[in-house]
């Protein structure tokens, strides 16, 4: 037990405040920068107070885009990112729930072997297997499509592992009671396992959604058609595209908009998210 003295409190808060400030400052700068007119940044001085151009900047990025740099209006890219992130999240959740269910509740040959194979893929991040994956996706004709954007990222050892751990804490008698009550395997899965895993699903949903939303390298590789650009790679294009100086005020407005959806997801699912990470209902 830490003693509750005033200096202790003071220092604890000081450290926390400094930590928060360090994290918040770049975000603050991005928001401020998105409100200034084009000329501000060429002078090389970063303003710390809001400028007058907020509305105009955001209107530009959302509706017009920058045709010269080859970036479409970001509303389309936001939509692409959203579709991709949702496809990845839902795909990951359904696949890993089902595979964890199979591994925990069924006795099939090479069960442990398959579990370890799934587990092994944890050691191979996207970047390592990116070349063969690209080849496969290209051969299947999935370049420039939502399928190509999401399917290769759906398999998830982490989620499978987490659900496996959770399923193993569910008392076996529940499954037996369900059997006596006349529920087959899939009915047991739907009526009992899924409702019990709901907090875990919510927690993973948040994590997976942000993972999907923040995908950068993969969309950059497999999309050449602006129709399928995602917001994160869009930012990159805006910075490097064109011969002129990057238009930082527009880039920053895009960055702020790109960061919004993950924040909204966290806000909406916060309660379930925290519950899923900290407690198991039994």
């Amino acid at each position: 037990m830490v003693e509750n003295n005033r200096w202790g409190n003071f220092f604890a808060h000081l450290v926390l405040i400094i930590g928060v400030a360090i994290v918040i400052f770049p975000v603050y700068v991005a928001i401020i920068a998105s409100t200034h007119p084009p000329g501000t940044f060429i002078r090389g001085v970063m303003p710390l107070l809001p400028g007058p151009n907020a509305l105009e900047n955001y209107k530009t990025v959302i509706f017009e885009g920058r045709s010269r740099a080859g970036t479409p209006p970001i509303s389309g890219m936001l939509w692409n990112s959203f579709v991709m992130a949702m496809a990845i999240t839902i795909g990951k959740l359904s696949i890993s729930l089902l595979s964890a269910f199979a591994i925990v509740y069924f006795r099939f040959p090479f069960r442990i072997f398959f579990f370890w194979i799934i587990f092994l893929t944890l050691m191979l991040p996207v970047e390592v297997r990116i070349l063969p994956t690209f080849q496969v996706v290209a051969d299947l004709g999935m370049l420039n499509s939502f399928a190509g954007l999401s399917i290769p990222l759906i398999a998830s050892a982490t989620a499978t592992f987490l659900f496996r751990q959770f399923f193993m804490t569910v008392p076996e008698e529940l499954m037996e009671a369900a059997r006596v009550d006349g529920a087959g395997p899939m009915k047991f899965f739907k009526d009992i396992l899924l409702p019990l895993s709901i907090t875990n699903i919510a927690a993973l949903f948040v994590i997976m959604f942000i993972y999907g939303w923040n995908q950068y390298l993969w969309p950059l590789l497999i999309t050449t058609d602006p129709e399928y650009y995602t917001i994160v790679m869009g930012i990159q294009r805006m910075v490097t595209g064109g011969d002129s100086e990057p238009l930082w005020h527009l880039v920053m407005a895009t960055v702020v908009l790109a960061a919004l959806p993950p924040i909204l997801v966290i806000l909406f699912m916060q309660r379930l998210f925290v519950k899923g990470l900290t407690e198991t209902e039994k």
Partner: protein
Amino acid sequence: MASITMENLGKVYAGNVRAVTDVNIDIADGEMIVLVGPSGCGKSTLLRMVAGLETITEGTLHIGDRVVNQLEPADRDIAMVFQNYALYPHMTVFNNLAYGLKNRGFKKAEIDRRVKEAAQMLEIGAFLDRKPRQLSGGQRQRVAMGRALVREPAAFLFDEPLSNLDAKLRVQMRVEIRQLQKRLRTTSLYVTHDQLEALTMADRLVVLNGGRIEQIGTPMDVYSHPATTFVAGFIGSPAMNMLPAEYMRGLVSADSLAHLPVKADLIGIRPEDLSLAPAAEDEMSLSGRLMLLEPAGAESHLHLSFEGIKETMVVRLPHVPDVVEGATLTFSIKREKLHPFDVTSGKRVA
């Protein structure tokens, strides 16, 4: 309602581990059979074989007039009450009771009627909208019972249903389960490791040890005529005293033990069969040194040691005697109350 017949039932797990050997039990329609034994004796395995949660590797199992060896638990027309209740934590009490009926495609009105009826019988009507975690242990136990009741099955299977309750509640639920079973006259198989529960609840009890049946009989039959030394030691508390016959023969005049078979080399004595009164005509007497006196309110337990043998003896008296520890006491016992056993086979002789 149905009878259950087990013919040469056996269970061998993968790796040749034997859990149950050659079990033959006939459970009559409406009878309550209690399987009792120490942990690891195979009683739960046997129950789960009847339930269909464990495969049957040897023998045949009949429920009613069907052979059910290969049937899924749901198709055997049984209902089971689990030790940890196994209630569905995310469902209300109502849905917990209704789930099995819904899966069987009952009409909504019928489900409603049955759940209400069971809830009323078990006095859980007030909790139908609650989740299991909002209930006390005793209430959860009732819900678990209710889930079995609504099904109106051919047989109830109980897997140590009272072992998670505190002592007081256990006695109360014991009485309630027995009353309910008598009222509904549903064939029941009840597993417990508590010999008192077994004695009080059973029509007949089955004592299991090491996966084999030691004895089947009515509670009083098993208590007063234990077939083996194992049963003698397991049923009854404090346990039956076992003294070498040789020692006993040396203590008393030759003819006092003449009625016992010569083969008997171990003599069992129930703690309550001894009294401090002087020995009468048909009685024999036995002296030992009092090591410890345990008063227990209405009764007392006296621990005795004897000279020359390591065996000790416990005597239960229906009062607390006025004696001091260290004294030598003489007890009397009716000769027909001696239980003769054969040490090598562990069986009762005559």
